[in-house]
């Protein structure tokens, strides 16, 4: 496989952390999954992540909180938000903060691939 860019997932839902990595590996990416924003920040993946798949609502630090924190630390990386709250108002807000895309769960693999390609182009 040519494309082994690292995609990191931050989502408090266990079934997402279980299912999404397998699909991303099928796409040919390297994958790391984290249960919280805090866990991701403490890991050594922050520097190596090519794209971050980020849940919005999480206990503790939320997705947008992490987005701001990464900007503050100058760790800009393409972010694709994934959320189970189909709230149309949230999309323009996170896009305005610099996110590449915002996918509402459940999303198709086509939508996911498009978002990932857009994210990696940004990079």
């Amino acid at each position, binding site marked *: 496989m040519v494309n082994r860019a690292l995609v990191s997932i931050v989502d408090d*839902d266990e*079934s*997402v952390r279980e*299912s999404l990595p397998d699909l991303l590996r099928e796409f040919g990416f390297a994958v790391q999954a984290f249960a919280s924003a805090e866990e991701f920040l403490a890991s050594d993946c922050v520097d190596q992540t090519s794209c971050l798949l980020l849940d919005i*609502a999480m*206990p503790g630090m939320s997705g947008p909180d992490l987005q701001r924190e990464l900007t503050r630390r100058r760790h800009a990386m393409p972010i694709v938000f994934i959320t189970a*709250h189909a709230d149309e108002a949230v999309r323009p807000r996170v896009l305005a903060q610099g996110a590449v895309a915002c996918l*509402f769960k*459940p999303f198709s693999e086509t939508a996911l691939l498009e978002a990932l390609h857009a994210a990696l182009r940004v990079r």
Partner: protein
Amino acid sequence: VQDVTERWLSDEALSKVRSELAHIARVTSLGALTASIAHEVNQPLSGIVTNASTCLRMLAADPPNVEGARETARRTIRDGHRASEVITRLRTLFSKQDATTAAVDLNEATREVMALSRSELQRHRVMLRADLADDLPPVTGDRVQLQQVILNLLLNAAEAMRGVDDRPRQVVLRTTRDDDDRVRLTVHDAGTGFAPHDADRLFDAFYTTKRGGMGIGLSVSRSIIESHQGRLWAALHNGPGATFAFSLPRSPDGVTGAHGLGAMRTPAVTDAAQVMRNA
């Protein structure tokens, strides 16, 4: 004999009115929970779609990854069940049905309500801490009605902390066994509390301090609790916020299954009548 028959009929009618009001209150909170429910269903749906996509890709590989495909198919099934469990819980909680009487494990009833409202609370950045007593005896009554009360107290607590930003938005939900063979549930929030002179009016029908509130939640809740021979009250405490609590008598020994409405009939008269007067 005539008197008794008439009384029985009106009790029946009043019990029906109370059921209707409880149903309205449930449907009202259903509206408040819509986002939460969509979230609870979308999570497993997302797992289903992702796992099925992975499964197809594993089967299309050369050679096919059959073991991987099996595992993703298993997860698809599990997530499907997870979605249907959410729907089952909802149907139980929001379906329109007559009151039933059975032994109710208040801890278990509370856990189900917490599961349903979890993401709604999270969305409002409310941290919920549950402290459920291990040795809680069952109470006798209508499980769904009691869950409606718990849900209502929980959503009220979250609502009371809407504008709170200078302290954690924490709700502590506690079940305890009282000395006198009663079971107590308290919901303690860190919200704006209420004015001391409002303490009694809080439970009046159509009295509300909430924008968009209908003011029937607490009055129906009190009616439900009193029809279970219980008591529902509100208290202010030191520091910010309020405590809402109810206590119920524990089931007499040996009560396990559903039986008639006999135990609930007499108090239902006064409470339903009270609700109707207030309405």
